[in-house]
């Protein structure tokens, strides 16, 4: 396995390539305030990030990635459009005994631009594909924007759509919710009893804690509304499942999505965006005929992508992705204090690149 010096030298080389592609070099602190990351990722991040306490600044985390500080920096005083390159160590706790490293280098490239998002997606992907081409990696792509559009277009309660959107990055929970909203799994006995007794049951104990009577009443009303609403139609559930399971070369996937959009017209704008992206990728020399597309790619917790997603993999399935990235427009709004800007970017693990170069 390549040592730190080799990983750093490889990082320098990739970083120089990003700068040559027009990126401004930026730095980020290793110690990041934990609060921002916890609010963004939830408690799950504690299992992956090293948390430490600072006597004056409170809980801090060893940076688990660069995206958040780079976005914050851009939102505070960045010019537009902007391209940034960065490199350095990131830290990830490993909760299982394995060869996976808890400290490794990342080199990244981020592009913030309001105009022509399809071409921005293509620019980032083509840059990564070109830099990694000597390694003969397998590329995988997806588009979370399609899933978001499909859910937003369901003919059902807004509260159900909001619940599905909130869990789009948790596939198991998403499926559970879809089963229930589709009327395919039974309503829990406790819920049935509650709905049957609506308003007639005295509170079994005095209310303690911060959650108020009004919040309980509001949720009871939401539950009643949900119980009265018809289930999501079997047809809509089937189309959604068809979409989630779609895995094909990009050009074939696009044709299939066109078919799906005839049944789910609200999908059409997202399919148009995918087509524009494939055109932009082809114009930059990417072989889109064979580029793998999986609709569920990128649906993992601790992610924030909401559009195009991509990753590059070595032949050994035990290795983590050599590179990954995607579009994260919503994240800039979350961190932008009222402002937002479309953004797309990705990272490469230079240590893995060095290992693969050694074995090539």
């Amino acid at each position, binding site marked *: 396995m390549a040592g730190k010096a080799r990983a750093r030298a490889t990082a320098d080389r990739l970083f120089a390539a990003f700068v040559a592609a027009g990126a401004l070099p930026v730095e980020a602190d290793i110690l990041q305030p934990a609060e921002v990351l*916890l*609010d963004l990722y*939830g*408690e*799950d991040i*504690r*299992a992956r990030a090293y948390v430490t306490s600072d006597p004056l600044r409170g809980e801090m985390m060893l940076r688990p990635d660069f995206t958040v500080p780079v976005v914050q920096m851009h939102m505070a005083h960045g010019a537009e459009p902007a391209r940034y390159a960065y490199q350095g160590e990131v830290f990830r706790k490993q*909760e*299982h*005994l394995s060869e996976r490293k808890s400290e490794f280098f990342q080199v990244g490239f981020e592009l913030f631009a309001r105009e022509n998002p399809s071409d921005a997606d293509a620019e980032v992907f083509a840059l990564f594909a070109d830099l990694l081409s000597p390694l003969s990696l397998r590329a995988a792509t997806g588009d979370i924007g399609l899933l978001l559009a499909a859910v937003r277009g369901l003919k059902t309660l807004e509260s159900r759509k909001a*619940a599905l959107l*909130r*869990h789009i990055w*948790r596939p*198991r*929970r998403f499926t*559970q919710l879809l089963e229930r909203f589709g009327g395919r799994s039974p309503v*829990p006995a*406790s*819920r049935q009893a*509650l709905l049957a007794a609506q308003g007639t*049951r005295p*509170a*079994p*104990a*005095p*209310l*303690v*804690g*911060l*959650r108020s009577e009004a*919040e*309980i009443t*509001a*949720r*009871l009303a939401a*539950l009643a509304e949900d119980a009265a609403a018809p289930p999501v139609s079997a047809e809509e559930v089937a189309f959604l499942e068809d979409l989630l399971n779609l895995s094909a070369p990009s050009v074939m996937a696009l044709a299939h999505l066109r078919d799906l959009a005839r049944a789910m017209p609200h999908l059409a704008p997202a399919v148009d965006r995918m087509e524009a992206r494939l055109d932009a990728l082809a114009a930059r020399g990417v072989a889109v005929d064979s580029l793998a597309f999986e609709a569920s790619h990128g649906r993992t*917790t601790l992610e924030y992508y909401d559009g195009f997603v991509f990753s590059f993999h070595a032949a050994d399935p035990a290795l983590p992705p050599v590179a990954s990235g995607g579009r994260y427009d919503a994240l800039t709004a979350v961190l932008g204090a009222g402002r937002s800007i479309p953004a797309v970017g990705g990272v490469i693990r230079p240590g893995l690149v060095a290992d693969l170069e050694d074995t090539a």
Partner: protein
Amino acid sequence: MSLKLGVPSKGRLMEQTFDWFGARGVTLKRTGSEREYAGAVEGAEGVELVLLSAGEIPRELAAGRIHLGVTGSDLVRDKLADWDRQVCELCSMGFGHADLVIAVPAAWIDVSTLDDLDAAAAAFRRCHGQRLRIATKYHRLVRDFLQANGVADYQLVDSQGATEGTVKNLTAEAIADITSSGETLKANHLKILDDALIHQSQATLFAARCADWQGASAAYRALAARLGLPETSF
């Protein structure tokens, strides 16, 4: 070199551990003054008794500083990552039963399941601008459980004792704690969720996989025969 056996140093857990070994012909006892943490073993050759806080036994096992240890199965799962690769569960001892559960105010008539808790957490965050707080000392077990069940928008706050009181004291909205009868929960106006039994704990005899077993294996074989334990190697 002797085989080091770590057992809880005080309270009911210590007494029941001594009884369990005693019933199998191995006498454990404390020696010296009542306040001195020293012990002796009779009825098993080459076994050295180490009296420890039950909460420290998982760590001592993981470090291999003791060969065998008695502690709650909840503590081992919570304190050790990949616990079953670090220690081997030799025998459930049939006492010290407690369930690790999630409890919420009983007045939350709209919340009975994890699904409800997740929905309430989302609404709570919208309403209060902060994630719903769950007080616990079992951080790993609770986080893994909630993650596996797709609950989001919560935060764990540390509570090392009197956890049932945190909701009334407004330092948490819900709790995850061990309970045996549920009486303390009830007295604090809390109820257990229907589907949030995280772990059923009991006192358990563990072996350390990374301890130096050379020189301790003869003592282990003799002890294992006495106690009816598996004759494995670690």
